[in-house]
């Protein structure tokens, strides 16, 4: 449900970047997220056409990269893969771990079309 409001917030950021760079249009938007971000990639993709309609990013491709869940053990120090509700150390089995990756929700980059800009000819 909250993916639409998150997508609208994403569009506001994309639009301000496009404006700042005097871009004609946005060709792609790259988002990286982890499973523990609380956002579903598919729902974000579904929300994208609605949120981007009528904006400079209307025809942009939304690329969502999913980052893995990784934890570092506070006891033995080793790092391992984990699942959303099992964030325990695979090495020693201890539950006292720190998340290294997996809760990100980031706008990584946007690709802009700037055909009228002489700098882009070269």
């Amino acid at each position, binding site marked *: 449900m909250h993916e639409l409001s998150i997508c609208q917030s994403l569009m506001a950021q994309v639009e301000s970047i496009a404006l700042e760079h005097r871009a004609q249009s946005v060709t792609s938007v790259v988002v*990286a997220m982890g499973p523990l971000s609380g956002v579903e990639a598919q729902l974000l993709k579904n929300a994208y056409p609605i949120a981007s309609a009528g904006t400079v990013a209307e025809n942009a491709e939304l690329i969502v990269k999913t980052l893995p869940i990784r934890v570092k053990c506070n006891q033995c120090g080793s790092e391992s893969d984990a699942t959303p509700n099992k964030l325990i150390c695979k090495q020693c089995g201890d539950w006292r771990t720190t998340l290294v990756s997996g809760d990100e*929700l980031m706008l990584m980059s946007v690709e802009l079309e700037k055909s009228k800009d002489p700098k882009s000819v070269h």
Partner: protein
Amino acid sequence: MCDTCGCNITHGNESLIRPGGKLAKTESGKEAVTVLHSLLHENDHTAQHNREHFDQHNVLAINLMSSPGAGKTALLEATIQQLDKNIRIAVIEGDLETENDAERIRKHGVKAIQIATGSACHLDAHMIHQALHNLDLSEFDIVFIENVGNLVCPASFDLGQHQNVTLLSVPEGDDKPAKYPVMFRTSDLVMISKSDLLPILDDFKVDNAKRYLQDIASTAPVIELSSKDKSGMPLWFDWINQQIETRKAYLQEHPVHHGHHHHEHSREHSHSHEHHAHAEDTLNNDS
């Protein structure tokens, strides 16, 4: 989450993100702009702003989250009745519709502001910011924010609170932390509410709930509490007092710069600060 210093880039994800990584390539004739901002950048900025306001007035802000019907409002009513009267309370209520919860709180003589979110399934920092316009924070010691009953969406939105408290009521079942790990991971305190029902609904095992919390690497303390028979209330009050003390000590070491914001949150509040909100987001890290 921080977006400015790069601390959200960890060695777990940096190979994907850094210039030259597979998420940062550029095609000819186009310009790729590296951003590395949270999708909730604007919300997080406003949340930080709210937090500064709370800090300026030495107010502790507690965000209460749970499923609908887990007993958040009942907990607040019991808290208002029993907490040390020297601790002045205000409540911000979030619901899709109605003023019912705010009216329940007001009956106890406590200031309550109702936010009707319409169809939104969570509170966000902007809604709290609006609500703060109607609260003179100098009159309070604690602001409780009762979020929309929902174990999913509220977890993603920082409101500017200092602490997150999640209620898990006994009728819901002890495996909720395994089903909603994102929510329970954000919790600084987990409260097993309606604990008076434990003898009746005996398939709820407190130890199981604690084990599921350990599985998500939660270090949050767990309190069993009943707003009805008032058991567990002293533990809750101990926790609140501890948070007030911790906050006080923190603010003594990290004083709030009063000059930073030029306004008070009163009705004549000006929105001048909203203009600077985006100025610092300049994207000068093209690569």
